[in-house]
């Protein structure tokens, strides 16, 4: 019987990939990243694309991550940046401060032929910046400071977006925005 060799301890310069415990820590975050991405995009396939891009970016940028910084907000900030980039690329321009946006038509996720759930549809009717704050606080239960760090905005902006998001979400769920759901794409 041969005993296992003990591998050498890597020197810091050689540690190109995260130490094993950190790597496992990232893997443990994947279910939450998927949950958030699913709610954010309303589409399972697009959500996993976003998660995959986030993980790849996190592994690339691992050395830029400072120890002591919370892992979860860091991963959410990467996802946020990728999501914003993706929306810009797709010409989705609702990433702005005002919440007096025209209500967008239903998202393309109806292409899967399934009827969107009420909640999913209501989320789609929030501006992306409000949807993010609502989900990071209400679903992911991040602290306001963590949300501010993840989105790279002041905490006061987190609070005002949260307030507007909750008011608008309530209005949408109450059906006040229902007639506009009938917008038909050309």
């Amino acid at each position: 019987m041969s005993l296992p060799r003990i591998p050498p301890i890597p020197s810091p310069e050689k540690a190109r990939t995260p130490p094993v415990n950190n790597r496992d820590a990232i893997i443990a975050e994947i279910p939450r990243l998927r949950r958030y991405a699913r709610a954010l995009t309303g589409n399972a396939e697009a959500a996993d694309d976003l998660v995959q891009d986030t993980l790849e970016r996190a592994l690339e940028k691992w050395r830029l991550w400072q120890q002591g910084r919370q892992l979860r907000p860091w991963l959410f900030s990467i996802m946020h940046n990728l999501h914003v980039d993706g929306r810009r690329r797709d010409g989705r321009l609702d990433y702005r401060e005002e919440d007096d946006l025209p209500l967008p038509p239903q998202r393309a996720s109806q292409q899967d032929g399934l009827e969107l759930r009420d909640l999913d549809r209501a989320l789609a009717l929030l501006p992306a910046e409000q949807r993010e704050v609502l989900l990071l606080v209400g679903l992911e239960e991040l602290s306001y400071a963590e949300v501010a760090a993840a989105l790279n905005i002041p905490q006061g902006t987190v609070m005002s977006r949260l307030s507007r998001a909750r008011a608008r979400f309530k209005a949408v769920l109450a059906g006040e925005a229902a007639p506009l759901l009938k917008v038909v794409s050309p």
Partner: protein
Amino acid sequence: MTTPISEDDLHAYADGQLDAARLTQVESWLATHPERRAQVEEWRAQSAALHRAFDQVLGEPLPARLLPPANAPRWFDLRKLAAVAWIALGVVLGFALRDQTLPRADKAAVASLPRQAAIAHAVFVPEVRHPVEVGAEQEAHLVAWLSKRLGAPLKAPQLDQAGYRLVGGRLLAGENGEVAQFMYESAEKKRLTLYVRREAPKAADTAFRYASENGLDVFYWTDARFGYALSGSTGREAMLDLGERVYKQFAG
């Protein structure tokens, strides 16, 4: 003289983000402002609805494309992990060493029972407001539901005598079918999870095994129907005692 209650305070109250002193102030203020109280409840209901709609994603099996690639650094990490486990635990590592010489990605993706259990533990234990799908107050319903989904009679072991009360349970998706997870909590808010999955029928191997997964103590064993893994940060001795209690209740 207290600071006036602001809109931000109300959000922080709804989200459980106030410190104890401010919490008391907001509570008493809300007692005399029923409209604002209703608004806070509405916000909480929104968060609860989001959880109901999306928490199912947490239990879905991870697509292979989301697991880190099985490249060279990963193999190095696996070997290091295995060596640390050997040093710490004296576990025979023949299997781990054999596995690492096989350059197969799927091999890496197939997690063992204690590992899957530890990952599921790490995902759900930090949940403050929604740690379980069905609470202990509906224990009969919980047990009937999980038994039906796992396809064999199950029970929720009681650990009250060891200082852990049942919080509830949830259904997860495992690599080879559905998995039940029960959660327990002590008076000090320490949490345990019991992970139960179907095993292929085979000669029962009820030997207790111990694994340390990311600092978690995991005891696991299998019987003719199920594989069990009990996870928590209790220390090895305490976990052995808890594991025996669970084992006796399933065997008895």
